[in-house]
């Protein structure tokens, strides 16, 4: 890359005289053009792989969630609601978008929880509770093998969505801001969405009831700032919840929406 012009005075009258040897410049341009092609092809391939991987993991998450929801729309709602709440909290559009794609996989680890525990009616024994609680770490393990940012975030959400703001959660007993924001947000939307869903063992709570129960956990299970933000935007968030239930966006839409 030695160039004749660098030896010339900086006060050269014609600026275009500052250039490389013509053949060398032409060759460099060829290199750059080829490199550009490989760069685009590589990005395209990476996008394809990410997409396929994402779709497969969403399917697996929906399968893990079959006991509670045979439509798969609960996990899709978690994504959109988490995105809306992140935006309401002042996070960037990029962060919120990534959370929309990541949060739906938070319970993927339940795929490894035995049905005898997962489907047990009534209270779990301490031993069963321990087995149940493994799903957080198991989910993080399934998702965390990737270096792609969205799956790294998904692993973080899976691992921390049962931590509690007061430190009484699991698996690590983290408290306050030591719990990643993604996990704190997902915990709140998961709580609200689960309450407002019909379950085999109980009908859905009304929205005002669910909001009241959410408010009661302010500073206990959940980050007070996130609860306050949720309550301040409750109407819009609930409208979004109803819209997602009605429109039931596909996993592809969840991945591709801007």
């Amino acid at each position, binding site marked *: 890359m030695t160039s004749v012009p660098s030896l010339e005075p*900086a006060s050269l009258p014609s*600026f275009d005289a500052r*250039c490389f040897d013509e053949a060398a410049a032409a060759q460099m341009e060829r290199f750059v053009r080829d490199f550009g092609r490989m760069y685009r092809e590589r990005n395209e391939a990476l996008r394809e792989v990410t997409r396929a991987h994402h779709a497969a993991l969403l399917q697996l998450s929906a399968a893990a969630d079959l006991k509670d929801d045979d439509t798969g729309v609960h996990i899709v709602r978690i994504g959109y609601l988490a995105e809306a709440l992140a935006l309401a909290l002042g996070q960037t559009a990029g962060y919120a978008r990534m959370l929309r794609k990541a949060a739906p996989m938070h319970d993927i680890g339940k795929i490894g929880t035995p049905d005898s525990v997962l489907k047990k009616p009534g209270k779990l024994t301490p031993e069963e509770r321990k087995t149940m609680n493994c799903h957080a770490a198991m989910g993080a393990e399934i998702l965390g093998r990737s270096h792609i940012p969205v799956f790294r975030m998904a692993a973080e959400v899976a691992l921390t969505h049962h931590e509690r703001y007061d430190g009484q959660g699991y698996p690590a007993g983290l408290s306050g801001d030591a719990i990643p924001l993604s996990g704190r947000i997902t915990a709140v939307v998961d709580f609200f969405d689960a309450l407002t869903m019909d379950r085999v063992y109980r009908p859905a709570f009304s929205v005002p009831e669910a909001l009241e129960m959410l408010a009661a956990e302010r500073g206990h299970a959940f980050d007070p700032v996130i609860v306050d933000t949720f309550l301040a935007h409750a109407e819009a968030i609930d409208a979004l919840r109803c819209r997602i239930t009605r429109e039931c966006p596909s996993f592809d839409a969840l991945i591709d929406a801007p």
Partner: protein
Amino acid sequence: MKKILIVEDHIDIRKLLKMTLEFDDFEIHEAATGDAGWVLASELQPDIVLLDVMMPGTLTGLDVCRRIKSDPGMRHTKVIMLTARVQSDDRAAGFTAGADDYLMKPFSTLQVLETIYRMEAA
């Protein structure tokens, strides 16, 4: 589409920079001197300016950077200085002039793109 202005006096370096930016979808503009760069920047109010430090003419890259940074119409404009010198005071001078980041020449094609993406994300 992001508007990017390249201000660089070396015609071939400018072309290689432009070709690098063409890996992605950007609206690309070019100027060969600090003076022309400042005129074009005021007119276009670009999102990102890739700005050479050493250029012939009355305005150096640092002058152009200072002007961009004090222009209310270009509050959104990010400036990435291109410098051939490795001294850290050169870097410091760039940041004092308000530069958002800097790239060392010979520039790395991937670093140019990564730096721009980082600016976009910020």
